[in-house]
């Protein structure tokens, strides 16, 4: 094949009637593929968000059940250790109530009297829907918007 034949083929391609059609088809396909890719990503993120949402719902329900069970057990424990029960148990074990005459006070340097109970634990995280991180509830567009905003601020 010499150069003349090549020029002939190029010329034939340029004047071919289906060339424009192919270009249109190509362009449409590119747009369609791009849309399909975006849709796929969107679907993937949405499905993951939905799964995470379902998980949060079931975890919230589990927490609620656990809290109620914990309350139940706490009440049962309190019943088993109530003042009357403990006094009876102490008597059954042969103990008797202390009298002032039985007491001998010894001075212990550095001793401090016990304070009333602190029942809370402030180190525990607060359990509420507000603590759900944005990864689990923001949309793709919100994520993109945030990224664009943060990159423009970075410049």
């Amino acid at each position, binding site marked *: 094949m010499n150069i003349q034949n090549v020029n002939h083929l190029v010329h034939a391609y340029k004047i071919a009637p289906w060339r424009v059609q192919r270009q249109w088809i190509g362009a449409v396909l590119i747009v369609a593929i791009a849309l399909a890719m975006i849709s796929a990503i969107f679907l993937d993120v949405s499905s993951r968000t939905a799964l995470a949402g379902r998980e949060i719902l079931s975890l919230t329900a589990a927490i609620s059940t656990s809290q109620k069970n914990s*309350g139940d057990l706490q009440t049962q424990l309190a019943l088993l250790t109530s*003042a009357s029960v403990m006094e009876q148990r102490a008597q059954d074990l042969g103990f008797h109530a202390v009298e002032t005459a039985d007491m001998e006070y010894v001075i212990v340097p550095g001793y401090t009297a016990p304070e009333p109970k602190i029942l809370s634990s402030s180190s525990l995280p607060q359990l509420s829907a507000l603590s759900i991180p944005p990864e689990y509830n923001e949309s793709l567009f919100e994520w993109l918007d945030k990224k664009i905003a943060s990159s423009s601020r970075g410049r």
Partner: protein
Amino acid sequence: MRQQYARRTQLIIAIMGFVAFAIIFQMVRIQNSSQAPDFLGLGDGFQYEWKTVFPDRGEIYDRNGHLLAGNKTVYEVTVDLKNVQSAETIASTLSRELGSDYATVLNQIQNPDPGIVSVTVANSVDQKDGLRLLELTNNDATGDLRGLNFIKHPKRSYPENKLASNVIGYVNGDGLGYFGVEEKYNNILAGNAVPVAVPVDPNKVSEIPHIPNGTTLILTLNRDLQASAEKILDDAVSKYGATRGTIVIMDPQTGELLTMASTRRMDLNQIWDYGSTFDNASDYNPAISVPYEPGSVLKILTMAAALDSGTVTPGTTYMDTGVIYVGGVPIQNWDRNPWGIQDMTGCLQHSLNVCMATLSTSMGATTFYSYMDKFGLGHLTGVDMGGEAAGRLKIPGDGDWYPVDLGTNAFGQGVAVTPIQIMTAASAIANHGNSVTPHVLYATVRHERQYKSDAVFSGSPISAQTADTLNEMLANSLEYEGSMALVDGYRIAGKTGTAQIPGEYESDSTNASFIGWGPVDDPKFMIYVWLERPTASIWGSETAAPVFAQMAQKTILLLNIPPDSVRKQLAQQ
């Protein structure tokens, strides 16, 4: 051919375009039609489902973390009438498993009221029984138990049963608190069922409303001290043949109520016993709800007023002739005898009515009633429990006040106060002139954090110097008298009270009282004992005073208060 295809294509495009246009047109038309809100509402109905959330009512603890009121899960068993296959099987199963009455359940299912689609056949079923019944229903292959539904919800539970029931109060079936702390703090204990719209779309999980549980309360009560007080009180009521009794223990420096016990207590898990336990609402907690004539315990306030106003000093003497006329009415001592020359400590030691009437008349009505007002008589103390009564202090100008009242009020007659009012007033004497507001709330716990309630001072009716002087006089008067209220190793200040009951002045019916606190130099407890109509002895010095001593010994042990000698050694180090 090609042209024919082109025409067909154009036709298809036109039809599709028309259909698309029609769809868009219809969408726009529907969204702007008058029915649009209905359609939107219908759509929203599928986006959310309504659920009833049962947040737990806040728990109640004593100061050492012992649970006094908690929650347990119970089941409400209902029958969906349209799904019932065998009413007899359901009735017999409930009868066997829960002890329900077979005929009642059968009647509920077979003869419901018109329009009823579901009936509750059992409520407050324990979790264990409920789960067993639920399992039976789930495993029922015959379908005879079809129609049974189980609704789980929390129920108030009181592990200590009767203990501190007068202070705690109770919650009724509708979740409303009655009496005591349950009533006073009902709003913050909350925990009422709330219907909420839960989004079905998991992407809207953040829209799920967060219904917080009720606030947990920590009380100033000491459970073990409360149990001891109730036992000592029950024994005392029985031993002295009293109709009723009350013991209150308060920290006079902070107003924290450590114990509040009264006879007639109900098991808070059996609230239906209320009617058979109490005659009326004020009986629930007499320490705050029942005003009575306290008698001689009020003399400490008269003496405080006389000292603070400069009317007398501890060394002031007077000649007790055994009678004084106030408003033309003779007032005599408790033994109707003259006691000769007495100083002010002697007045307190021998509890002389004539002396007190002399003091009040010397002060004059304006000064005397001004002090009584500052001590809070006739006013609510603000104690944080439901049902407090203000009592009554008549003053000049009132239609039922007579000049003789100035004399009788000075020794606690013709005036009605509650034990908590006397304690609040006396706290000024024990606490260098500052009276405290009695309270039972130590702290609240919400959002995983504990918030402490601080002591609140309600006023300074007398000076610190007067308070310290009177403290010393009261301690000396008990020691000189050899009172049955004394406790070995500890210096105690206090005063007995014996008051005839109004309307029964000629009989032997009395209210026997004692108020005392210790150790005198640094009071850690103030104890009030009130025995109503004791029959073994009518005198407070022979009934209430020994009960005070018994209670004080127990308090000293449980609060770990060393004897005065040990505390002095500690102070010297």
